[in-house]
């Protein structure tokens, strides 16, 4: 059963490789005499990818998988992982809407809370001061145009920047 589980990943990657191999065949190639087409190299790489997947499946089937205990069998906190991934993916989703300062404050607060910081005051102070320090460093010093947000949130970010004398 364990060996079957270990072969699922390589099998899925093999199938993806096969799909991409077929997609490479549909590239709008204009043949130039004496030259290899733009599909040649990706196809070569995908053949390598699929062959290595077969090797991996054989390795798993023979029970010769290196590395001792697979990490997948080690204990894992699913709620923390789900929360972490949601925050990591939510950060770039919200930043263009709410603006970098507000999203970053929320993100820092939520992530530190999720990672185990319990006391509310240090949480709040670290998140707010951390965001302000980052704004000074990257907007004022490095002139990086970090996302300001959309609509009313853009006005809010600009107000905040003026308040902090960033611009």
């Amino acid at each position, binding site marked *: 059963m364990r060996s079957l589980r270990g072969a699922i*990943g*390589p099998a899925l*990657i093999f199938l993806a*490789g096969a799909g*991409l191999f077929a997609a*490479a065949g549909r*590239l*709008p*190639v*204009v043949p130039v005499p*004496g*030259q*290899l*087409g*733009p599909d*040649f*190299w*990706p196809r070569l*790489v*995908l053949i*390598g*990818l699929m*062959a*290595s*997947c077969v*090797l*991996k499946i054989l*390795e798993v089937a023979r029970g010769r*998988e*290196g590395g001792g205990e697979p*990490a*997948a069998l*080690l204990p*894992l*906190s699913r709620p*923390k*992982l789900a929360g*972490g*991934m949601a925050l*990591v*993916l939510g*950060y*770039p989703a919200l*930043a*263009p809407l709410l603006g970098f300062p507000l999203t970053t404050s929320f*993100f*820092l607060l939520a*992530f*530190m*809370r*999720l*990672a*185990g*910081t319990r006391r509310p005051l240090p949480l709040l102070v670290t998140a707010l001061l*951390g965001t302000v320090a*980052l704004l000074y460093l*990257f907007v004022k010093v*490095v002139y*990086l145009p970090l*996302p300001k947000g959309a609509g009313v949130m853009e006005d809010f970010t600009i107000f905040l920047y003026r308040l902090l004398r960033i611009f």
Partner: protein
Amino acid sequence: MWETLANLAAGLAASLEPLNFLMILVGLAIGIVAGALPGITMLNSIVLVLPFTYLMEIVPSLLLMTSIYIGGVFGGSITGILFNIPGDPMNVPTTWEGYQLNKKGQVRLALGMAIMASAIGGFLSALILTFASPPFAKVALTFSTVEYFAVVVLGLASVVVIGQVSVAGALMSLFAGMFLGTVGTEAQYGITRFAFGIKFLETGIDFVTVLIGLFAIGEVLDQLSGSKAGAGGDAAAPSTSRARLPSPRQLWALRGSIVRGLGTGVVIGAIPGAGATVASFVSYGLEKQVSKEPERFGTGVLEGLTASETSVNASTGGAMIPLLTLGIPGSGATAVMMGAFLLHGVQPGPLLFSKSPHEVYTIFVGMLLANLIMIVMGLLAARSFAQLMKVPEPILAAFIITFCFIGAYALRNDMADVWLTMLFGVLGFFMRRYNLPIPPLILGVILGPLAEQYFLTSMVSYGNDVTVFFTRPVSAAVLLTSAGLLLWPALKGWLARRKALRV
């Protein structure tokens, strides 16, 4: 020779300019601290300073990065010796012996030896880099795309074989990375490949997004979910964090370990894809092989600590050789440095020595200086590090992700790069979880497009005759070495089975 010395003198003068010297100090401080903090690797910290270098000239940018590199590969040994928490995988062999020495009450000697071994290894490897690179670059100028392709293949082959647990897994990772390198508009025909109508994919996937995502975000998610032990360790607070430098007599007694560590570090560091982690394990293993008392290893043996620590810093000079002379980054750190070169419109490679000698020799002298200054910085860091270790991990993790956001966004001021970084972070978590090695994927993304370019150009030049790779001597020798590297694990297994059958 005189030309080299004159260039070195000019490099010394440039390195001592206030901004350049400041960058060396700042870089060393960042490197040592970042290297020592679990969760922030030396590579991550080089990636994180990349946005700051946009506003600098190329020399201070590269001095900052090389100093972080030098300080970073050493930094992890401090926490390894003090708390049994190696800051980076490359510091694991040092931790095996150093922490045992700590438990025996010899923490000051262990720290002092680690500092001196690192400084000696790094300084001598920078000297080797200074004098070996120019002649190597002259030879490299005679290479055509055929030889370049062969060297890139060697880089790809070595990353698969050296230090990997599963060759099949490493190959999967490598080819996946090489495929990612084909996404976007290709150079020869101008045709967009594998963008599937997604606008930002048409310009390709920037390797920095892959690098930051897989390494930094993947690591944070891994630690957050609890599948990897974070900071904390099982050690009690150290009795003292002051280091005592070893006496000349103690150093002389360990000269064999230092020389072996230096040789291993420079050679392995110069192989594209190998790097400091492989160097540290190989030199530790070699030291155990040559020791008269191998059974004592793991109980606090200075020879093991010295060899591994020398090799880790010696690999920094070695890793710069393929970058500067061939334009091929041999490790993640040198890959980011290559990015800094390209950002400033300078192409690393054999022509670098004739086109930009000022920049090159300033970097060489900067590396020599950084290794000397590291003795003082290392002593200071060892003294004060017990305080820094108190930074709570949740705060560190949250700020790492925020820095990754900014680092990715700064590439093109485009949220698409941030999205890619975060998605690669999730991928990085699953790769760790399922024992798929990450470095081959990174090297695949970086070296894959180079391999394609050199291969296709060679084919155009030689009328699609693939035998050209085997009829030109340098190319044939390098490709043969690559084949040997790929076949070595299978051969080793066969030899071991034969030996077992005989017994």
